[in-house]
């Protein structure tokens, strides 16, 4: 970089402009990073709660399934599973956080009313309702957890990238630009002094003649 520096006024102005842009970019990236960190903290807190709840619900669902298997057997559960008519649907979308596209999953048909589960009340017992409801709740929670986990992954990657860029600007690009500016300024000062000295000697020489 240094080899190609020309100690000209236009170069100095260009470097000064680049410094302004770099500093502005640095400030914006830092702000974006801070906002994303705040968002990450918020989501991570939610994700942690969701994961804990998921673990709890998973255990509860397994317990209800164990009771259902005891009462209806795996054959009974398979028969009920045959009855499911409407399959849940998952629609992926996004939400915008500081230009970042975070995933949002909207689901339909996960939680169902008793009448829409497809099995007849007469041939089943309430243990099936309980197991179905537990797993519907678990699926809903799982979708939410997937959304949060994906958001955490995306935010973490973006924050890492931003931190690298902020650090690069802060510790490499901007100091380098300042150094170039200083070099140009000092070279230009040197040239100016040389010019003054040359004029002084020329005047003195003429006066001596």
């Amino acid at each position, binding site marked *: 970089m240094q080899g190609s520096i020309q100690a000209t006024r236009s170069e100095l102005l260009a470097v000064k402009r680049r410094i302004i842009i770099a500093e502005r970019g640095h400030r914006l990236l830092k702000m974006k990073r801070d906002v994303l960190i705040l968002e990450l903290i918020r989501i991570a807190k939610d994700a942690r709660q969701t994961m804990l709840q998921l673990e709890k619900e998973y255990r509860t669902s397994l317990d209800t399934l164990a009771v259902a298997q*005891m009462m209806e057997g795996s054959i009974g559960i398979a028969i009920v599973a045959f009855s499911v008519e409407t399959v849940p649907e998952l629609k992926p979308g996004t939400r915008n956080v500081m230009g970042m596209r975070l995933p949002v999953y909207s689901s339909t048909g996960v939680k169902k009313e008793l009448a829409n589960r497809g099995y007849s009340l007469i041939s089943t017992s*309430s243990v099936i309702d309980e197991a179905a409801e537990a797993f519907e709740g678990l699926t809903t929670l799982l979708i939410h957890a997937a959304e949060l986990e994906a958001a955490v992954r995306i935010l973490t990657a973006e924050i890492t990238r931003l931190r690298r860029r902020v650090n690069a600007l802060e510790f490499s690009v901007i100091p380098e630009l300042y150094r170039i500016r200083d070099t140009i300024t000092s070279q230009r000062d040197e040239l100016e002094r040389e010019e003054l000295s040359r004029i002084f000697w020329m005047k003195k020489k003429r006066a001596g003649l």
Partner: protein
Amino acid sequence: MNGKMFSPSQLRAGLMLKPATPGPANAHYTCTRLRVRRTRLLGREDYMRMLEMDIPQIARFIGEHGYAKEIHTLDSTRFDTDRLEVVLMQNLSEACQNVRELTSGPLRLLTEWYLHRWDIVNIMVILRGKRKGFSKERIADVIAPAGDIDAAAIRYLAEAPSEREVVDRLVLWQLYPIIAKEYAQAKGDVNLSALETRLYRQYYIDLLRKCETGIPGADLFAASVRLEIDLANFRNLIRIRTGTVPEDIREQMLIGGDIPLDEFQRLAGVDEKDAFLTFFRGTHLFPLLVDSYNALFPDAAKAKEEAEKFIAERWLERKRPLHEMERTVNRLRLSRLEQLSKRNPFSILPVLVYLERKKYEVFNIRAIIRGLEDGVPPEKIQQFLVI
């Protein structure tokens, strides 16, 4: 319908609907044999011992107690509980078919009709399997040919290429008109859940009608069926109340119980404790539910008041029925039926008691195996056994 016609002989050749053999029923012989078989079923001590065993030990134990043929088909080095469950159901199906063959005359007619509920289960599985496009092997895994339609006929139905073809092949089945009507009226897919409910409604209506034919003990059995209907209706009403209650709940209820459906309809909207208890105390379900509460919570000081409070609270909070209580109710209902069968030894009751006891024997073994596999404590498993 796809228009493909089958003659009755073709359908019979398909081993469907073996004709009942009318004739003088040797009720004494049949009932005595079934009472002897009843005594050979697993008892409380056997179940308590099984709760202390691991699954291979249980398999070996039941292999020595009437399940040898089925257990020998399993891989003894690695017990697959799903496979074990399938062979248990095979044993049950065989036992039911055996009883069917053993009975004759009017006893057989009622036994066949009683076993008919398995046909509804199997046909619904086939219809649902066909709609989902499952293979006949996958369908066969969940079928228990314990009813009037035997295993070969079930296979014949499961091999049908489509749902409508299954319906066509059922032309000689007693409940065919209900299915045919649903499929004829449906514009798109038939609502299978509603169809199943209609089949069960008709099944119970016909079962109660068959009980009026003067078969010894049929009137007592009819009373038990009516209690079963009322219990099922009450249980389902509680289940319905946990979500959005439809305007008319009667469509989802069984017909033929002692409590009129209009009463259940009225009760669906009751949210006051006193109104609920007034209704509840006036039904024949009340003493049975109090007894089951007492059996479930033997430490309760004032069983009647506590049972009332417990059931009313669950009703008002729109909670589901307690599974353990459902099982206790079944246990009490069955032991009452058994007592009646002892007082009427040469009636339909010993036949039905044996069939019910055999069914619960299989269900109990299944509950123990599944419970132990899932790490459920033996004390809890015990609550789900119908002994």
